[in-house]
């Protein structure tokens, strides 16, 4: 990216001394940042560095304790998305902020007409959406229901939403987290087109190579502070990585190895849950290996995790755990069979955040003879168990009786790890285990998984982060529309191969009733 083209243009956005506190936590500490017209500025930082918070302040979701914002020289009214939108700020949220059960048109048009108006000009809106789609290569059917769209299409709708309201400054929050490598390249082309038309872009990401690929300048946030601003032209990955993290964190990487005996075997398993399904999935997970499952979000990975975890019973096919074919599928059966399950969503599935640490650590084992006698729970033993986990896994919490919601994301994940790994499990199901964690916590989780692998555990690692899979997995398979590809050795596969498979290349063409 050439920095000089953008350098002569006027400043469209000026953040000065933005400070935001949430109770004792300072999420943004006196951050000042400027953006010029036609410029793409990358906001780089690990999870929890304060990037999204800063942009939420710009968009009006939050109000800063200190600091001012000027857009094209005019002060911006804080705390009002309506004011920010009027000033020309548009935001593509990380989870898109779309109402799934409404149409594309509904989502885009909302808020553009006065609430006191007695009618709505949908014809004109429809035409305008189609025009914008054509101009920027973001075609979507305005009358499609959002729930039926793919993740990439939903992102297009979110972008169109901002363009429809004539955004001059576009904020993109981790836009590539859910895209295939090819879709990411296409997005970058679109962004260049925007910039050519005079838009300015803030690109939030924790992925170094993307920032370097598309941004003119990069601002690095760490622990709520702006630690550096660089022109991308002169910056190196190593320098930015160190600025981002502030210290040398060992990158977890392991030499691929071949697994031993088959610990978990799924044979032609088919399952169905709501609108998601699995078709004829066969996989063999061996002791002492990490089998990675790649795929674009929404292609059945969650359902696969549910089936392996015992939450959803398959409609066809068999599951064999440690040599025994399972006749009953339930979480208890899996846990009793020595499986450790790390769920995708800490808050919704992994922990009961309103209950204490002690209550949470026994959630899978409260009926075993270890903690229960004649239907009564021995709370002293439960507390001791919690203390052990807190100590062994370095979980930072006020006490074992503290409610779990007080813990940070990383500590919650450590608690879950402690709970499921305490008994030396033979099979580990890790579903997006490092999502939303800071670098330190990510490194810790990876370390635990590799240590388990060394002990001979069989690990099924489902992840949307290809980098994670390519550094940890011994073999990798790809999920696409409920089907699982045959696993490939890590050494035989590149990120491009995976990207192509994630959109369906290489999967056999099935008969018409498929998918």
């Amino acid at each position: 990216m050439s920095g000089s083209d953008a350098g002569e243009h006027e400043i469209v956005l000026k953040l000065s001394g933005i400070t935001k506190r949430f109770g004792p936590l300072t999420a943004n500490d006196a951050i000042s940042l400027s953006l010029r017209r036609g410029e793409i500025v990358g906001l780089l930082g690990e999870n929890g560095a304060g990037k999204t918070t800063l942009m939420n302040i710009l968009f009006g979701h939050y109000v800063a304790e200190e600091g001012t914002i000027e857009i094209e020289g005019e002060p911006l009214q804080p705390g009002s998305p309506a004011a920010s939108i009027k000033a020309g700020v548009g935001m593509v949220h990380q989870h898109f902020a779309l109402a799934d059960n409404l149409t594309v048109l509904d989502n885009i048009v909302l808020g553009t007409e006065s609430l006191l108006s007695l009618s709505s000009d949908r014809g004109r809106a429809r035409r305008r959406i189609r025009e914008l789609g054509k101009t920027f290569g973001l075609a979507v059917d305005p009358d499609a229901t959002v729930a039926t769209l793919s993740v990439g299409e939903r992102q297009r709708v979110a972008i169109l939403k901002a363009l429809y309201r004539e955004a001059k400054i576009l904020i993109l929050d981790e836009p590539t987290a859910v895209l295939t490598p090819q879709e990411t390249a296409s997005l970058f082309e679109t962004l260049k087109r925007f910039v050519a038309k005079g838009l300015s872009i803030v690109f939030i990401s924790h992925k170094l190579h993307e920032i370097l690929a598309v941004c003119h300048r990069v601002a690095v946030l760490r622990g709520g502070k702006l630690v550096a601003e660089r022109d991308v032209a002169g910056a190196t990955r190593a320098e930015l990585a160190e600025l981002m993290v502030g210290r040398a964190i060992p990158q977890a990487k392991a030499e691929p190895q071949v697994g031993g005996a088959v610990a978990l075997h799924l044979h032609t398993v088919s399952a169905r849950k709501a609108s998601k399904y699995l078709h004829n999935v066969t996989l063999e997970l061996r002791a002492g290996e990490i089998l990675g499952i790649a795929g674009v979000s929404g292609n059945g990975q969650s359902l696969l995790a549910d089936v392996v975890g015992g939450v959803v019973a398959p409609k066809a096919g068999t599951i064999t755990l440690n040599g025994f074919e399972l006749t009953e599928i339930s979480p208890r059966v899996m846990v009793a069979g020595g499986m450790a399950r790390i769920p995708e969503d800490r808050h919704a599935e992994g922990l009961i955040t309103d209950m204490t640490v002690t209550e949470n650590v026994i959630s899978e084992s409260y009926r075993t003879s270890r903690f229960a006698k004649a239907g009564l729970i021995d709370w002293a033993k439960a507390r001791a168990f919690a203390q052990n986990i807190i100590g062994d896994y370095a979980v930072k919490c006020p006490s074992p009786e503290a409610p779990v919601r007080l813990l940070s994301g990383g500590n919650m994940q450590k608690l879950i790890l402690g709970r499921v790994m305490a008994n030396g499990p033979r099979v580990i199901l890790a579903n997006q285990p490092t999502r939303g964690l800071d670098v330190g916590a990510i490194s810790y989780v990876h370390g635990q998984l590799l240590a388990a692998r060394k002990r001979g555990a069989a690990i099924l690692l489902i992840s949307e982060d290809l980098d994670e899979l390519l550094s940890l997995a011994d073999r990798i398979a790809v999920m696409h529309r409920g089907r699982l590809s045959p696993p490939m050795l890590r050494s035989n596969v590149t990120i491009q191969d995976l990207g192509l498979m994630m959109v369906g290349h290489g999967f056999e063409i099935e008969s018409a009733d498929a998918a």
Partner: protein
Amino acid sequence: MRLEPRGKRPLRILIGYPVAALAASVVFCALLVMLSGASPFSVLGLMVKGALGSQFAFLETLTRATPLIFTGLAVAVAFRAKLWNIGAEAQLYAGAVMTVVLGTGLLPLPQPILIPVLMAAAMLGGALVLSVPTFLKTRFGVDEVVTTLLLNFVAVLFVSMLLEGPLKDPMGLGWPQSRKVIPEAQLPKLVEGKRLHFGFVIAIAAALVVWFIERKAALGYEMRAVGHNPKAASFAGIPVSLVLAKTALLSGGLAGLAGMTEVTGLKGNLTLDLSPGFGYTGIVVAMLALLHPMGVIAAAIFVAAIFVGADAMSRTAGVPSYIAHVMVALSLLSMVTAVMLTRYRIRWQSYGRA
């Protein structure tokens, strides 16, 4: 306006806010009383005297509190598991029906055996009534609020049908009432010549049992987990549907006991006006008690005092006794607001609309 979680919750807030809430309810009711021309102070005085001012009054209050302890426990147990049992009224009547079917002569057993049998039957009746909406919830996803509510109306009609039919008292001069229960079925009075009966003791015992279950039993843990987060509970292997079924049995059973003790301890038979809304009032009791079993006892006595006091006051001062219902409803709303305020602070922003 924004809500911000409080870091510290000093005692003066934890106690002060609920007290302020109840005081606010009293003040509002005082205004209503003034509309009727009476002096709020004299009305309040009459109410306090009528509820607590003499041994007779106090015992009457405890008598009135007995069914409220049962329905309060029933609702508290269910609400903990987020099972919205608004049908305690129907379950209470089911318990009363079972009591009257078995206790009017069908089972000629001695008292120490008959009473527990009737208790069990009443609990079974109440449990069965709540198990239907609970089953519909776990199997079909039907919201139990509406089903339990609608069953209240069905239950009252059903009881009316029974009282005019198979359960009719042949010596009742045509009024729809059931036969009286046999002497062995009657709960002994606790104080000679007064209305307070053994049911009060059973109620206290029930509260202690519920407290024990919640703190020590695996079931108590399961009910809490399911109430907080059914998805995470299910993931961990807790059998959510089974837990809800057990909750329904316990909750419905407690409400059934309310009916049983009213029949065998107080009224002696079953009539249509056995319950002047005990099931609904139980909701207020449970919420005032913050779902805590021991708190239910205190809240039930408090609410009973309001009703008993208002009845006595109304006879003298002429203010409609419905003022008690208003007071109770206001206590509920102000109490849940106060409890929220002990957990969150309200932040007013001076600019924007944050």
